[in-house]
């Protein structure tokens, strides 16, 4: 079940990689090479924490559900949770 979900996401057109990260920023499962994974995990974990704290500062009843970062080359999508983090990188122009 877990595998199928991840596989389904990975199979979309233009998806470069998928990373599952735990609450401390340590990657659990990835489809990229380890150095890239570690870099993405560490940086995006910190960014997600920051974004979440921003949202909650503005309205404490609110919470961050989804974070999309669009860059020139890719789009990075991050979905946070209490314990985990799912990161997907997609190239939209293909």
């Amino acid at each position, binding site marked *: 079940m877990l595998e199928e979900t991840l596989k389904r996401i990975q199979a979309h057109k233009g998806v470069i990689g998928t990373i599952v990260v735990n609450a401390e920023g340590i*990657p659990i499962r990835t489809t990229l090479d380890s150095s890239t994974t570690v870099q993405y995990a560490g940086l995006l974990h910190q960014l997600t924490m920051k974004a979440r704290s921003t949202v909650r500062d503005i309205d404490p009843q609110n919470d961050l559900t989804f974070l999309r970062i669009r860059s020139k080359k890719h789009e990075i999508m991050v979905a946070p949770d209490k*314990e*985990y983090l*799912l990161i997907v990188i997609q190239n939209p122009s293909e």
Partner: protein
Amino acid sequence: SCPKQKQHPEQKRKNAPGPAFLSHLPVTGHPDYIFPLVLTSATQELFCCRADVDVTGDEPHKLLRKEDILRDMKNRAAVSDFSPLKQAVLDYPEEELLLVFDQDFTYGQSFYLVLTAGAKEDILRPPPGMEEEEEEGDELLEVQKTPEPKPWLSLGSEREIQEESVTDTRPRVYKVSRVRRQFGAPVCFWDHSAGAMRGSYVECPSYQDKSFSLWRMEKENSVQAIPNTKSSSSQTLWKYPRNMCTQYEPRELEDEEKERLLQSADLKNFLNSVSARFELAIQQNEIMDVFLDDWRALGDEENVLGGKVDTHLKEYQSFTHTHYSTNKTISCLSWHPTVNGVIAVAVTENLSFEERINNSTRLLLNPSLILFWSFSDPINPQLLLECPDDIFCFEFCPSNPNIIAGGCMNGQVALWDISAHVDRLQGARGGGAARTSNADDTRDIAPPTVRYCAVSGVESGHRAPITDIQWLPETFEVSRTGTPLENKTLISVQIVTCAPDCCVMFWDLRAPRTVVNALTDTKPKPEEKTVENPYGVPSTFKHLDLTWKPLFRVHTHTHFSHSHSPSPTPPDKSVTVGDRPEPPDYGQLHLPSAKHQRQTDDISTKFYVGTEDGEVVYTDWKLEKDNDSGQLFSPKPTHCFRVHDCLVNTVSRSPFYLDIILTVGGWNFAIWKEGVMTGPLVLSACSQKRCSAGAWSLTRPGVMYIGKEDGNLEVWDLLEKTHEPSQIQSVTTFPITCIKPWTVSLKQQLLAVSDHQGTLHILQVPWMLRHPAANELSVSRYFEKEVEHLVYFEKRTEMREREKKQVEAEEQRRRMVRSSFSWWASLLDNICPKNICAGRN
């Protein structure tokens, strides 16, 4: 002198002048106060007046005491020398008598005594007047009067003396004395209070004297305001910077931990809840890229704001020389490969064959030239190369741009070496500012002329004017039989030439093997040294001069007019251009034995040649061996296309595609693909004027420039239209003879166009024509489409043939059927007349 002994006063005389006056008296006579006497040596010793010892000529005076003389007289009575003077000595008033040593015997004796005090004084202290007279010598005065003593005349000197002297002006007031025994004794001091005894001191305090007080009523003062400053300091603990480093590595989970987490339900729930959002987002991206700026992606990068797009070729510069290039035509031009802004043109006479023969003597005197123009000087060429005859084509060596090879009209190949003048070319390019300083002297000097340093043998060369010359690329070389071999030296050493005498010749720059064996390599022979070098020609190719033979020749039966370089190396064999070796001494290079060289099989030995009659011939240059006679002969050309109506003047490979070739000749041009032998890919329509030159664009694969007979330059863009040129521009009024583009920099591309009247035009290529469009690579697709079209065309021809045959067969059959049917019909007619058919009713 010892003062003890004195002379008797008796000996002294009365007042008399000094001895100077006495010198004029007769020798025997003497004044009264002088008494000459003789002193015995005993007396002399007694009185310390020994002659020449105590008293000398310089110091003749001696003072003797009266008592001594008297005593001596008492002691020795009659024996004493002073005895006759007893009375005079006794009468002498003073204590001392003067004895004078008379060296010159003026008074007859060696001594004389002065008897009077006055005379003594005079002698001892002669007055100044007498001194001067003394110094003048004896010859002076005859008669001298004895000077009378005069009263002293005071001239004020005693006042000065009195002033100078220190005397008491008043009696001494205080006298302090001390007991003698206290001198030097230690002193004891004690304190004494000043206020205790009023009278022990006298005070002299200062007071304000009113007469001397001055009050300053006005005073200038300046004031400056400064910001508030506050100084403070604190003592800090100084820590010096230290290098620190931390080594870290990312945290990773153990594999078991990962497995455990992956199996956990939490993760599953999380993924299930989150995946929907992801699907949404990813699908959004797949549908459309919302951030793509369509407007920006639509147009090209050009920054033309409104107005017409500029595709006009602007005239950049034009070169012509009144002396060298009037009434002549430029037959070939070439950009210098390394020096920027230098271009070389070959200038030839504009005469027909008959005219040449008629004017041959004049032509011999004016040698043909290759001119080197530089952008910095449009009036004077920088360098002139002297040619043995009119040059129709020349090329720079790709590995050593100082070597130039050219093909002459009489079939010879000439070589030039301009290494000595490269500085001039480079200096000429390097800025006009430096040149203006000494502009006067450089302009007046004629450009240097370099003679060709080697020329091929007349009999061994071509028999017709050489129309094209190409250097083989430095990646391979060719053996005597035409087999391509690996070139270990990585420099271009071989040249291909073609001429209308049906020959393509391969030449090698190195000394042939047999010649080398005869000569010694290391030291030159003495005969060579005596060979003069009257033209100052560099001896780079001395070994080839006049003995140069081609390596081998390819002989076919068609008259060649142009050829092109053989295909370059396939891309997997990359040549490092960076560390090109130093241009070698060509005299030292030898043709290697063919055995030692590796054969390269991936070089194609086929090439295209254009002919005088307008054919394009595709042939192989490798010589084949005839099995019967064992001789080497050239194979027959594989394909021969008759496309152009006139002489083919350009055969050129596209700089982008290795197998696309452009040929220009007659009234049209054609594009060929190597390997497709059915025909040209593109054949342009015949234009009204002849095409006289053609060239590919260096940056756009689908653009080419065609020069026309009426001086127009046509720009053909295959992506735009193929039935007519996209642009026509008039460059000159004379036929264009050669076109060569050149990329100067990223922003500038120049096109060199030469015309029939000797002028070289440099045009600047506008942005539109040099910047490749976004879909420029579709030119290759266009060519492929054309190939397919040709293939289809061929197939269709076959199909048509077959169809035609079928139709004919059908027709035949039908004809046969019809003919037989008509026969039956006529037979029936005869047997069964019409009434039978009509008898029915």
